[in-house]
């Protein structure tokens, strides 16, 4: 769950990381409530997508009138399809130096790493001078930050001040169970103060449940999701959109991917990834069927369930119901495992053919899709 810049900065300030003293506006007219004397200002569109600077989402305004017109433009400017609801208005700051700083978990180190670059403000993927300091077992101490500071070439009081910022960003990262806590750029201003000019915080979605302050906020922090992805997220179904025409409903992430791959292998195109999960009951499977088939692109539904925890008869019951309400829908069903016999009886009664051989099911689905 990625936070908006202004929200990330709230967390920063809460843990003592200096940020520009800004305010958010919800409409262009609100700029007239900002003291005229406090201009010039920076207007920053608040969207979750990246690349907003290049897309024109950040503008400088010399006075209220200028800000009014620019805010109007920004509110109308979608960034990768996303329109802002908020603009962050901040004072302009003097920048002596820009640094990139981030904390995240690195799979290779099996733990968190501190990451920095002496070139801040840029896309970190393109930086050639990224320095990394792992923090084994997440047992943080200030010296890790000093090592990072030394590695990016900071000296003297700047090294000490930088390390103090890392201490606080570490607190943000741990306190809120972040996947990523990033300051880019972290700037040094004319008075040698370190200020977080931009902030990016991604909360770990498995962890937000233990942070009541973020309860119910997920829905406002989703971007870049297709229609089925958004709806799936809301009801706990993990669906990923693809461009094919064979709807996939499967249990288990690995088996789902393997089924999709098999479709491709046989010359078909999967329309989605959908892992209905372990132990799914009838209602859950019904919601999954609705979700997968809600795209007009889907010509055939391929259901592949290997019942370990999942009971095949629960799935069969959902399929029978679905057949009733959508008698014309094309379905190819492979069911095997737990309660397979009971499922067979339900399927026979509903008049839905089923197989227990995966290859056969996939071939049939591909063939049906090709005819559709």
């Amino acid at each position: 769950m990625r936070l908006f810049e202004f929200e990330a900065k709230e967390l920063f300030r809460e843990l003592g990381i200096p940020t520009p003293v800004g305010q958010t506006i919800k409409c262009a007219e609100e700029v007239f409530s900002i003291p005229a004397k406090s201009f010039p200002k920076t207007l920053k569109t608040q969207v979750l997508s990246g690349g907003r600077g290049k897309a024109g989402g950040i503008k400088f305004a010399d006075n209220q009138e200028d800000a009014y017109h620019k805010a109007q433009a920004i509110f109308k400017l979608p960034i990768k399809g996303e329109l802002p609801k908020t603009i962050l208005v901040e004072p302009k700051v003097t920048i002596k130096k820009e640094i990139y700083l981030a904390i995240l978990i690195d799979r290779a180190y099996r733990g968190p790493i501190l990451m920095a670059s002496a070139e801040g403000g840029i896309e970190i993927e393109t930086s050639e001078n990224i320095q990394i300091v792992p923090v084994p077992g997440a047992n943080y101490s200030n010296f890790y930050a000093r090592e990072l500071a030394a590695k990016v070439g900071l000296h003297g009081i700047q090294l000490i001040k930088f390390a103090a910022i890392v201490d606080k960003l570490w607190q943000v990262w741990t306190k809120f169970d972040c996947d990523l806590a990033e300051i880019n750029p972290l700037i040094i201003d004319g008075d040698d103060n370190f200020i977080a000019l931009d902030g990016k915080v991604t909360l770990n979605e498995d962890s937000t449940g233990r942070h009541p302050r973020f309860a119910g906020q997920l829905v406002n922090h989703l971007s870049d999701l297709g229609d089925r992805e958004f709806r799936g997220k809301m009801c706990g179904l993990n669906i990923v959109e693809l461009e094919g025409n064979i709807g996939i409903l499967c249990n288990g992430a690995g088996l789902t991917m393997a089924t999709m791959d098999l479709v491709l292998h046989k010359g078909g195109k999967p329309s989605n990834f959908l892992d209905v999960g372990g132990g799914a009951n009838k209602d859950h499977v019904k919601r999954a069927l609705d979700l997968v088939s809600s795209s007009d692109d889907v010509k055939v539904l391929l259901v592949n369930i290997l019942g370990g925890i999942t009971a095949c008869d629960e799935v069969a019951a959902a399929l029978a119901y679905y057949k009733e309400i959508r008698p014309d829908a094309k379905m190819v069903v492979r069911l095997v495992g737990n309660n397979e016999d009971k499922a067979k009886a339900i399927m026979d009664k509903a008049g839905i053919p089923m197989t227990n051989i995966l290859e056969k099911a996939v071939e049939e689905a591909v063939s049906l899709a090709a005819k559709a």
Partner: protein
Amino acid sequence: MAVLINKNTNVIVQGITGTMGGTHARLMKAYGTNIVAGVTPGKGGQDFEGIPVFDTVYETTKHFRVDCSVIFVPPYYALDAALEAIEAGIPLISVITEGLPPQDAVKLHAAAKANGTLVNGPNCPGIITPGECLIGIHPGSIYKPGKIGLISRSGTLTYEIGLGLKQADIGISTAIGIGGDPIIGIDQIKSLELFQNDPETEMIILVGEIGGSAEEEAAEYIKSHVRKPVIGYVAGVTAPPGKRMGHAGAIIAGNKGTAKSKREAFEAANVKVADTPYEIIDLVKQELAILA
């Protein structure tokens, strides 16, 4: 003898009175696993279908030799439960729980490393040595005892392969479901090492998926350490970059962690790579013919 668990393994179940823990304690016991005790704080003194329930792991170790703990407690309590088992000196812990916060996973694996504890998972189906011992949620009937070692990041995909092998009358020594999270304990390399050193295992199936670089590292390990035939498979050829494919760990980041990269690494390590799950079975048959 297989690897990690066998008919002599004494197992406790943490979270035995929960829905998930209870269901699978029953299934494990029915399979023949020696479930010596269960643990649920506050329910000590109860009896779960003949299995004594204790408040603490410490108490179970006073009454029994405990070789393994299977953890079915909810995500936010799983770290504490695992630390309890580690501190009690249990050498093998299987964390079935899905959705463990990553920061908890880091602490769990650091503690396990410091204490020399083997951790299976989290977010895994557990381990099965067919005919001897089942820990976790594998459907036991799907596997036949035999001489193939099976390593997989996935649950149902593992069952699919176990089932395919059984239908071809091929058995496995042990199946290790290593789990789908980015940070796991017993990983591909540790599993390969165990199977390489196990005299009863003749061949190894390594089932990977997109995300991370564990398969690439495993391929390097195979080159230098594994002398038994290895059959590989990688799920996720069709996965788009940047999307989490169910498992927390199954995500292509930038251009890293693709199925292509992993397949190529396998091939470079002389691992036979299957295109489909059932092709794995064919490759196993071919290798068995060579070995015979």
